[in-house]
């Protein structure tokens, strides 16, 4: 019985991997034969590829790191502070998280333009730092911190930063890894914002390149897609071990 399940499972996994494998296979396929020409075209002839790649890395990394600094205290506050309307505030965050992009893109554009941030990296980074998604996820994980540790730390110090740093973060270390992974993957896939908020091609990101890949000489779409996979995969593999150790999510309420 177990064996049948395992086989069935293996097939399922294979189906999921198939499109990814196909992408990788196509990246080596030029004119029906095996060739590295696509990669050569991409890495040597597509001069816009490198800046776009590093822009993607830079934006995603900046957003992820700064976002952590914002959402950890916020989630901590959600778990510790007591005031009326806390639940409502959280529901509010959830609703904001669920807004489709088309809704906010024009007002965001107007806001950024008034602040003079169009065509600068900050126009991409700043709004994403405050994305409600991170707050919601972190809050769920934060629910499971052990209050006794907090109490203990509070005895020693009244500085909230110390409490968070020494008391809370060690406990939720694994959750931080998970959040980093989600947020990074989310930012890594951004297409609309770079296309509309950035005018200078040198500031745009890799997904924009891939969407417009037909316009470049040579078969660069699939090699670019493969390279696109790599950073997030590395991040995932890096955190995989830790994730296995377990994450608990608290109640939604």
């Amino acid at each position, binding site marked *: 019985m177990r064996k049948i399940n395992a086989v069935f*499972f293996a097939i399922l996994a*294979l189906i*999921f*991997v198939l*499109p*990814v494998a*196909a*992408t990788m296979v*196509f990246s080596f396929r030029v004119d029906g034969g095996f060739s590295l020409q696509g990669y050569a075209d991409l890495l040597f002839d597509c001069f816009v590829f490198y800046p776009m790649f590093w822009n993607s890395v830079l934006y995603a990394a900046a957003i992820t790191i700064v976002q952590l600094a*914002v959402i950890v*205290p*916020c989630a*901590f*506050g959600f778990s510790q*502070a007591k*005031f009326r309307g806390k639940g409502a505030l959280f*529901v509010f965050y*959830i*609703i*904001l998280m*669920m*807004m*489709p*992009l088309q*809704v*906010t893109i*024009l*007002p*965001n554009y*107007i*806001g950024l333009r008034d602040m003079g941030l169009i065509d600068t990296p900050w126009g991409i980074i700043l*709004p994403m730092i*405050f994305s*409600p*998604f991170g707050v919601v996820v972190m809050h*769920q994980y934060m629910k499971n911190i052990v209050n006794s540790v907090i109490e203990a730390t509070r005895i020693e110090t*009244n500085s*909230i930063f110390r409490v968070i740093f020494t008391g809370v973060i060690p406990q939720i270390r694994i959750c931080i890894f*998970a959040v980093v*992974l989600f947020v990074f993957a989310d930012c890594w*896939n951004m297409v609309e914002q770079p296309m509309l908020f950035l005018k200078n091609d040198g500031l745009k990101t*890799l*997904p924009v390149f*891939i*969407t417009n890949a037909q316009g470049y000489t040579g078969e660069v*779409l699939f090699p*670019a*897609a493969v390279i*696109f*996979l790599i950073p*997030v*995969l590395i991040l*995932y593999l890096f955190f995989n071990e830790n994730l*296995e150790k*377990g*994450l*608990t999510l608290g*109640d*939604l*309420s």
Partner: protein
Amino acid sequence: MKKHLKWNTKCKLCFLPSLIGTAVFFVVPYMRVLYYSLIDNQFRRNFVWFDNYIKTLTNKYFLLSLKNSLLLIAIAVPILMVLALVISLALSYGIKWVRKTRFAFVLPMVIPTASIVLIWRSVFADSSTALPIYLLFIWKNIGICIVLLTAAFTSIEGSVFEAARLDGANSLILHTKITIPMVAPTVFFTALLSIVNSFKIFKESYLFYGTNYPPDHSYTLQYYMNNNFLKLDYQSLATSAVLTSILVFGIVMSGIFIQRRFDR
């Protein structure tokens, strides 16, 4: 004498950076959208209050797009959840090498849209139903669901099971009384996340059909909004956005309500 802030106040202050940022970049734009939905056009700015809402709610294309979006949520999300649960269970409690295959399910999450659409189009040439989009949605989002669910499953300490077994509980009770309650919050959260992501599938759908006017069965809210944007009809866009957010609010509230009842 230095006045120390109360602990509770300090905790409240923790919200500050997030609140300010969210207010500036999310709340203010939302208020703007709300304002735009109440005026007649971007340039003359006369208040017409609910006229726009009536126009949108009676527009058959809005209703069609609403229906399609709801169908996607009502059908694809449960299937996604069930599939994710089954796979997560297998991954959490299965034999070791099966666990290694978790990697395979996470891969779809990171593929860029443009490349996957090409492959999808060659596989699913027939576009008489919205099946390709549903499958694409499930395929893409299974990864994040699995990560969250397996994490939840594996975090249930083995000792809890041991203790229950010692008490003489059998498999069924084990699962209903222990596993499900402990995993339920994660399941709800994952479902919510999937609903959020169902709105994000627009880009894939757009590239798949290659047109602003896909077949009727795939015409979702985002198409409606995007087309109105390109036609400079920001009012329809704004009203449909506000209506969508009301819908979302409803879903979230009912989810919380169900969970509260479930906790009892």
